[in-house]
């Protein structure tokens, strides 16, 4: 059964066009309408029950609703007055989609968005059922959905988005997706099915994403970095696209932003990064928790002070900005939206627990983890830190934890003298402890505590009052950590660095 996670059940043999296109409330067959309304009511009840039991309730309601009304995603999503935007890619989906939703809300739109990141078909269905009325109507201007890469072909057929944003491709959960090439292939398949009035918003700086342009049957917008000189960086050990997509010669990078993202050129066949339409013209970190950005397109300029750090968040803002511009959103709303953005669900959330400062960050693949380590190493000048790394190996995390050896943990030794506390946790607490030992951390100081609640309590007790406690969690560990912090009466998002 395990392998079925990424695939939605194909229910019934209904052709999608008949149901979706002919839908006008007045003419809809009564039976279909009743089914839809019943599905929505049931989904709402299940969601309420889940929340009463302390669960997120972001997938089960949709799963049940899809059983009853298999066409509900298309029926509901297509009622959005301005249409749907799909955000996909390995890293930055949740943040980019949340930024875009924030921008659209500040432009006065009514937005439906799967903010908890439930991004398989059943998650999309849960989100739509929660937003819909029991009469089967969805009052929304725009639906913004982050979508799992493997679900993209089905999601595009059902949602018929007006825009698709692809952020990047990094190795991620190889046990679930198989090889990266397969993931890229699935997204290409979805892109090829866009209709002619849609728009594809692609990252020019990732050779794997830029290559998707070959399949785009509609308008195409590239976004990318163009500030120079970019701080020179070394390629991480487990980079995913060092070699030319056309002729396999190693790329020469004019500059590298992070991972394999940057301005690449193949010295043999001349294949190079396409010129970005929406460009990041300025990037300046502000302390450990923010940055100044300036984005340009067609002589228009958007300058913002972002309240989240790191080059990867600059890319997320750039992607959201490019998508918003493609929808004709005014610069003023983009600026207001991005400046009011305070971090997405579980992605570098700052909280206070009993007077202690805690920074909760999701780590799920080498590229993302390397960037979190960068932020941690740079932000550590200000004082001592405690570190809890919680790695689970459930289906949603990826059952294979080999990727921990692709993360450059060796860089943590640069700030070893500031790391006051080092706890590993989760179902793979011991694997993580071994990884840190081989990264050069003192094994006597590494404490494996598999129970996450216990690990967090132990860390909070041991960490000095003015230390910053980093809580780095794989996906299901992040959900557990949030619940544990809520029980400990954490105060959300009040602490800021400056």
């Amino acid at each position: 059964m395990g392998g079925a996670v990424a695939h939605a059940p194909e229910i019934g043999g209904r052709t999608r066009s008949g149901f979706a296109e002919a839908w006008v409330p007045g003419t809809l067959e009564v039976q279909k309408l009743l089914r839809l309304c019943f599905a929505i009511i049931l989904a709402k009840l299940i969601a309420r029950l889940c929340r009463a039991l302390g669960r997120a309730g972001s997938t089960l309601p949709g799963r049940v609703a899809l059983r009853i009304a298999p066409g509900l995603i298309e029926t509901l999503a297509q009622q959005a007055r301005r249409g749907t935007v799909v955000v996909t890619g390995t890293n930055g989906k949740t943040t980019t989609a949340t930024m875009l939703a924030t921008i659209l809300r500040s432009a006065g739109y009514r937005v439906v968005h799967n903010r908890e990141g439930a991004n398989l078909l059943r998650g999309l269905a849960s989100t739509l059922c929660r937003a819909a009325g029991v009469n089967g109507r969805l009052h929304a201007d725009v639906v913004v959905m982050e979508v799992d890469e493997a679900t993209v072909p089905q999601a595009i057929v059902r949602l018929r988005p007006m825009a698709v944003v692809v952020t990047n491709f990094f190795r991620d959960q190889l046990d679930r997706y198989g090889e990266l090439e397969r993931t890229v292939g699935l997204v290409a398949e979805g892109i090829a099915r866009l209709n002619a009035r849609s728009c594809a918003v692609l990252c020019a700086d990732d050779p794997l994403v830029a290559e998707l342009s070959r399949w785009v049957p509609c308008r195409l917008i590239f976004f990318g970095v163009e500030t120079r000189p970019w701080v020179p960086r070394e390629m991480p050990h487990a980079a995913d696209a060092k070699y030319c997509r056309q002729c396999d010669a190693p790329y020469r990078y004019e500059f590298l932003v992070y991972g394999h993202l940057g301005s690449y050129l193949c010295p043999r066949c001349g294949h190079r990064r396409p010129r970005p339409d929406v460009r990041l013209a300025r990037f300046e970190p502000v302390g450990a928790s923010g940055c100044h950005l300036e984005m340009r397109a067609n002589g228009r300029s958007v300058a913002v002070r972002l309240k989240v750090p790191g080059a990867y968040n600059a890319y997320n803002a750039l992607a959201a900005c490019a998508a918003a511009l493609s929808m004709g959103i005014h610069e003023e709303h983009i600026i207001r939206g991005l400046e009011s953005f305070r971090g997405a669900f579980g992605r570098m959330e700052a909280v206070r627990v009993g007077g202690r400062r805690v920074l909760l960050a999701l780590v799920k693949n080498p590229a993302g983890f390397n960037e979190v380590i960068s932020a941690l190493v740079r932000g550590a000048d200000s004082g001592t830190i405690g570190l809890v790394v919680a790695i689970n190996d459930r289906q949603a995390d990826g059952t294979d934890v080999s990727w921990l050896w692709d993360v450059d943990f060796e860089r943590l030794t640069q700030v070893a003298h500031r790391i006051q506390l080092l706890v590993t946790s989760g179902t793979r607490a011991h694997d993580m402890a071994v990884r840190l030992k081989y990264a050069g951390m003192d094994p006597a100081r590494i404490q494996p505590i598999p129970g996450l609640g216990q690990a967090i309590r132990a860390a909070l007790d041991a960490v000095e009052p003015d230390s910053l406690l980093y809580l780095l969690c794989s996906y299901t560990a992040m959900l557990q950590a949030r619940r544990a912090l809520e029980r400990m009466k954490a105060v959300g998002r009040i602490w800021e660095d400056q």
Partner: protein
Amino acid sequence: MYTLRLGHLYPDLMNLYGDRGNVIALERRCRWRGIRLEIVPLGLGDELDPEAFDLLFMGGGQDREQRAIFRDLHKRKGDALREAVRRGVVVLAICGAFQLLGHYYRTHQGDTIPGLGIFDAWTEAGPRRMIGNVVARMAIADLNFTLVGFENHSGRTYLGPGCRPLARVLVGYGNNGEDGTEGAVYENAVGTYLHGSLLPKNPQLADYLLGKALSRRYPGARLSPLDDRLEQLAHRVMVQRCMSDGRARSWSR
């Protein structure tokens, strides 16, 4: 002070499942003992001198990357690699590299991709991927320990009489999901489907390989023991978990 040299074959192409962890483990376990381990990357176009190395390592790659190294492996490094194995150089080949060191790989379409023939083994594309945690018991004489790792392959590998299995599977699929064998051993060359990474969590195997390399270069030299409590704990936790999961599975069948 002892010095050993490790040749890392195609480090930036064949590095799919954290296989670099094996090189990290060998380097650290040498350093902790005061042995210098020189690591030499051997990429596309580099010549391989069969005399120059005590250990050779090659990880797994995606199909695209395996295609990219295929010509180079056969044209530039194949003979030297065979020669190195003949001379007793320690070789560790993981997953895709293990397949490439056999006689051939037969694809779904029936095409045959030739390997280097170092192991008397061949691989056939299978109908489904074999994915999951593995526990296996070493099948080499005098070595009585378990291996833990993670496998993810659709190729089924079968061993001929010219090589021996590395281990017997207790939980998981192993080479082909049929005969209970995992990996292959020929001279001092070891092939296996296990990543995880393999060596950090199986320090006894790491030391078995290092010990072979050391005593070949410096006859009489022996490895000093290390404090492996953390590694052994990680190993034991996974063995216990997999064995009890495995039992639960066989009951529910």
